[in-house]
């Protein structure tokens, strides 16, 4: 994982023939953004990782917007307006997908509730069983 992350900038440079931007801050933002956008032509990769036609055009667009002074948010919104949420590799929170985000938590709470009920039932059963045994004992003695 660490190795992959370390290799990523090198790979990106190998695929992206454009020279780095003169401003290192802009270059960092550009690199960050292109690693967040999905190549829709190839679908498994970011636009930073492929020489596909689509990725080349999107990289150029991001580069131009960064140089022109657009914020990261504006670049993301520009892409979402045209291609939809799917272009973002890290999906945004929205009402429509909120259940996806909440589902793991709900499952966890549900699981804990079920486990708690089962354990309590078992303890109660055990208690009544013991009580039965005790009363049997008493009956036997009398």
């Amino acid at each position, binding site marked *: 994982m660490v190795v992959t992350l370390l290799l990523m900038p090198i790979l990106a440079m190998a695929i992206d023939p454009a020279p780095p931007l003169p401003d290192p801050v802009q270059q960092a933002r550009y690199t960050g953004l292109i690693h967040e956008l999905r190549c829709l032509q190839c679908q498994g990769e970011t636009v930073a990782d492929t020489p596909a*036609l*689509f990725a080349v*055009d999107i990289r150029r667009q991001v580069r131009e917007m960064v140089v022109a002074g657009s914020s990261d948010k504006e670049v993301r919104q520009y892409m979402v*307006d*045209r*291609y*939809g*949420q799917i272009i973002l590799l890290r999906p945004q929170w929205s009402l429509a997908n909120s259940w996806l985000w909440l589902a793991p938590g709900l499952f966890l709470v549900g699981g804990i509730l079920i486990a708690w009920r089962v354990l309590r039932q078992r303890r109660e059963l055990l208690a009544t069983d013991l009580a039965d045994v005790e009363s049997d004992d008493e009956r036997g003695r009398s």
Partner: protein
Amino acid sequence: MNKFALPLVAFALLVVMFGVALKRAPDKQFVKSALIGKTAPQFVLPDLLHDGKTVDSHAFAGRWTVVNVWGTWCGECRAEHATLLQIKQEGKVAMVGLNYKDEDAAARDWLSQLGNPYEVIAVDREGRAAIDWGVYGAPETFLVNPAGTIVHKVVGQVTAENWRAQFLPLIEGAAK
């Protein structure tokens, strides 16, 4: 209550959910266009067949328009070409070509060999108009209504089947 009832109901719900999702997922339309229901992006681009002239998308206002994104490098475009010619024959829509990341000479050759289904062809050499239209490959085909709203998009080939099943009902439904 039977102790299997709850898991069974949960399982049945999952089956229904997956079933619906599978049924509703149209093939190849993995990326639903974000632009459906939105105003079609405007463009002014060079005209492929008339040197020095431009194609202005404002010219299509008031008519049903099909915008077909194509390139000579695209195999599926060749496959759908015959259908496009038929749609032109039918004469129900204005057909606009968006020649995407192509060579002018190759594109002209292609049209003189295979026939020209388009009223006009705009040249998008750098793919900038394509980004505005949310295009990520070719062929892609948009249906724009007379008010200038994108009402449908097909990624991949236009076929006689999807033309009849998806495009025509929208055009004819609005005419009624």
